[in-house]
């Protein structure tokens, strides 16, 4: 389904951010990518849909080499890759429905997009997805009126609106509190499994990765240094990926600092 071959990227010549990474996702599984900050997780994901242009290597999605496509071909390929972001990246001043429907922008004409005149099948699919992510009735709310958890669920709906062959997920929970993080992860992983969509998922939170992923990749200094099941992610493996630290359950129980992703207090309804 997805094959990454010797993918590399240097932002400054001679200093690789992504160093000769190869792996294959042969079945629709949720693959968590863990590793310290600056390990190249975000670069890896962005090199696949070429939001960041890779320096060398290839990313092959369902037999098509994405890295060599021209801009028209790349746009077609991007339609099949849904992306979910740490900061949600919703268009704040648009409504929930407009944000979800923007997942179809690769398919509708400019004038239909201008008039917000989307095909009936897209609209019904959007309502269906809003129900699936638990946002029934939110279609006319503006995105900036939502809480962090709600925004990320809109982000999930927007990505799934593309009916993607691959989901690229960049730190989906890093701006959310621990409870909301688990809810968002559960919705995301459930839908990915149900829709048989292979998913690449950057995540800082190791316990969250262990409880939701089917497979874990570990990165360090731009290199892929671990590839295994969540069960194989032992204390030794974590030390290998992150460096020396106390990995006992007591020490890892506390999740990272929760960060409130809520724009205005009065609008902080049901997360």
């Amino acid at each position, binding site marked *: 389904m997805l094959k990454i071959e010797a993918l590399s990227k240097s932002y400054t010549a001679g200093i690789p951010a992504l160093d000769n990474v190869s792996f294959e996702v042969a079945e629709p599984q949720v693959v968590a990518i863990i590793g310290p900050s600056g390990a190249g997780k975000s670069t890896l994901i962005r090199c696949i849909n070429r939001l960041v242009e890779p320096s060398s290597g290839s990313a092959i999605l369902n037999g098509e080499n994405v890295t060599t496509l021209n801009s028209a071909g790349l746009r077609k390929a991007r339609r099949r890759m849904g992306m979910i972001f740490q900061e949600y990246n919703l268009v*704040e*001043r648009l409504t929930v429905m407009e944000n979800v429907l*923007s997942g179809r922008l690769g398919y509708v004409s400019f004038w239909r997009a201008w008039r917000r005149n989307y095909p009936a099948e897209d609209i019904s699919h959007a309502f269906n997805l809003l129900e699936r992510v638990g946002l029934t009735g939110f279609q006319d709310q503006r995105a900036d009126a939502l809480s962090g958890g709600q925004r990320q669920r809109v982000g999930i709906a927007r990505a799934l609106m593309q009916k993607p062959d691959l989901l690229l997920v960049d730190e989906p929970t890093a701006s959310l509190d621990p409870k909301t993080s688990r809810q968002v992860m559960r919705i995301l992983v459930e839908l990915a499994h149900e829709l048989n969509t292979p998913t690449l998922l950057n995540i800082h939170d190791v316990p969250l990765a262990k409880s939701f992923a089917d497979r874990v990749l570990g990165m360090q200094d731009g290199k892929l240094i671990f590839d295994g099941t969540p069960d194989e992610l032992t204390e030794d493996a974590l030390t290998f990926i992150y460096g020396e630290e106390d990995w006992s359950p007591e020490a890892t129980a506390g999740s990272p600092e929760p960060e409130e992703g809520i724009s205005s207090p009065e609008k902080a309804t049901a997360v």
Partner: protein
Amino acid sequence: MTDGTAEAGYPDIWKRFSPRQTLVRYLWFLGIVFVAVWSVRHLDIPWFYFLDAHVQVADLAVRMIPPDWSYFDVIAQPLIETIHIATLGTIVTFFIAFPLAFLAARNTTPNLATWFIGRFILVASRSVNTVVWALLFVAIFGPGPVAGIWAVAFRSIGFMGKLIAEAIEEIDEGPVEAIASTGASRLKVLLVGVLPQVLPVIYGTSIYRWDINIRESTVLGFVGAGGIGIQLYASINQFAWDEVSLMLLTIFGVVVISEYVSAIVRQKIT
């Protein structure tokens, strides 16, 4: 420390600026004083006229008060024409400045050449005063409000285009990245990812510029480009100060109203 003694082991002196920085600051101050003195000397101002300025002010006030209220019948039409010139000029500006701003913003312009063209038009527009534009357009279209509308528009394009372009350069790139990742074309990314973020600025600057344009349009008549300026110029030349004072009062009234409308509209846009 409240007892006035310094804590041992820590510095007890801290200054925001080093002596060198302090010296540089004084030199800047001296420089500004020098420029001001030099300007006054160079202008060779005839101080002699200042001696009876207070007498002239009193004399002018007596001639201006009371305003000639009956003259309102004459200026009502030109006053409305002035507002129309400002409004139409602003609408023309909107349609030209809007695409121009996308050319002049670094993050949306197609390439360096288009960016340069965009910036050049904006700077050219702003470097010429409305009245000077009006002189040019009176020469092209002949005297009348059409020249005024184009004069207002040509000066406003630079103002609005610059402010909108700056807003475009300051947008959050996150949504733009997200829309691009759905496979949307460049134009659709601008439509959905960029435009909603700058729409409040576009509306806000349009209404603000309309407000400025009403004030600017009041003098366009001095050079024959329509509006109340023609009457104002005529009355000043005939020393009909009671008519002049009435026009200044009505212009003041219109400006107050347009500022008020502009403030309300800009508050509503979020």
